[in-house]
């Protein structure tokens, strides 16, 4: 888990296949629900847990919030991805933990603490 800024609320434009692949990768790393907008106007809301790129027809897999799932969606059918759910990993990285430990230690060892 990295300690980068959260993508919560992100709604990127997807003008081409290269950008789509990149946004799918970000959605795959994201620890919150996303909304996947399909070419037929449907919207799938759920957790995107996998993406398979090295096949003839690349696809993502999701656990939708309202279905038992998992469901499978080809990249070719995706028009947009919105990072709509809460990022459950935000502020919970190992690096953030180390920082808070160090801060707590510094506070408890400072004079007058």
């Amino acid at each position, binding site marked *: 888990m990295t300690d980068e800024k959260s993508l919560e609320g992100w709604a990127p434009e997807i003008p081409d296949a290269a950008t789509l692949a990149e946004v799918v990768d970000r959605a795959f790393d994201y620890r*919150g629900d996303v909304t996947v907008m399909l070419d037929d106007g449907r919207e799938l809301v759920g*957790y995107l*847990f*996998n993406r398979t790129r090295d096949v003839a027809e690349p696809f993502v897999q999701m656990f939708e919030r309202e279905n038992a799932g998992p469901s499978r969606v080809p990249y070719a059918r995706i028009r947009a991805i919105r990072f709509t759910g*809460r990022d459950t990993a935000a502020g919970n990285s190992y*690096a953030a*933990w180390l920082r*808070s430990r160090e801060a707590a230690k510094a506070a408890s060892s400072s004079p007058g603490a």
Partner: protein
Amino acid sequence: MSVPLSQMWTVATYVLGQKLRGHTRYPLVLMLEPLFRCNLACAGCGKIQYPGHVLRKHLTVEQCLAAVEECGAPMVSIPGGEPLMYPEIGPLVKALVARRKYVYLCTNAILLKEKLQAGLFTPSKYLSFSVHMDGLREEHDEAVCRDGVFDQAVEGIKEALRRGFRVTTNTTLFDNASPIRMQMFFDEMMDLGVEGMMLSPGYSYSKAPDQEHFLRRQKTNELFAKMLANPKKRWKFNQSPLFLQFLMGKQDFECTPWGNPTYNLFGWQRPCYLLQEGYATTFKELMQTTRWEEYGRKSGNEKCQDCMVHCGHEPTAVNHTFSSWRGFRDTVAATVTGRL
């Protein structure tokens, strides 16, 4: 070392069988995660951060058993999340024991006493509770971010031992650990009567330059070398002595990411228990389509540079035991003398 002879024999014959068949990549321990839900929220834990609807899901017993069959490893470790929160944990463990799999049920033990009193489990040489213990009371409660958990775990351990179960502990150490306090911890666990202890350094990943990676590995070596320099005869470790020597800087091992494959709600995790770079639908697909050459320290993958964790390197240590006379001799010597 404290692994029972029957288990050692099972592992030895399995590994030798794989070698005789010319298999260079084979699984040793299946990491079976039936759910991600947990009753703790330990700092730095990357296993539990999912939306609520994912945390409420779990694998069925049938899915778990199909994964076990597919994988074929002689040992099954059940981490999580917290496996004692899995509603089917009793039937799952029973089915695994019936298949003569050596099961390590990895638990924070908050619910252990209650589940044992409810009669969920039967003692067996195939079943060990592997209790998460990150040090003495102060260190453990700090690591799990809740006071009183150490005492609850000790209660659980005592209850399990009283009922005749095998109990081990598993401890994750970061390089700020105190060797002296850890030695006191080993004494305390042995006083409790656990069968053995398992140690692993924690996993940390940072985009640090090479020199820092080297220093981090050196720090891990120093910590383990100090802690285990003169191991007391009574300290029992439920793991390969060569892996402990690796942590002390006395062996140089590469990672074997396929050694402890992970199966969970999402499928077969690539490439290892720690990194989530994608999922395969079948075990065969995992083994055949993962680009294994992209992982491990020699690959140059920056995520692997600091990593010395048990799930990637203990299988290497076990394989080393059966790959050369030196490996075999070193393992036997450490097992017989207790010296590392």
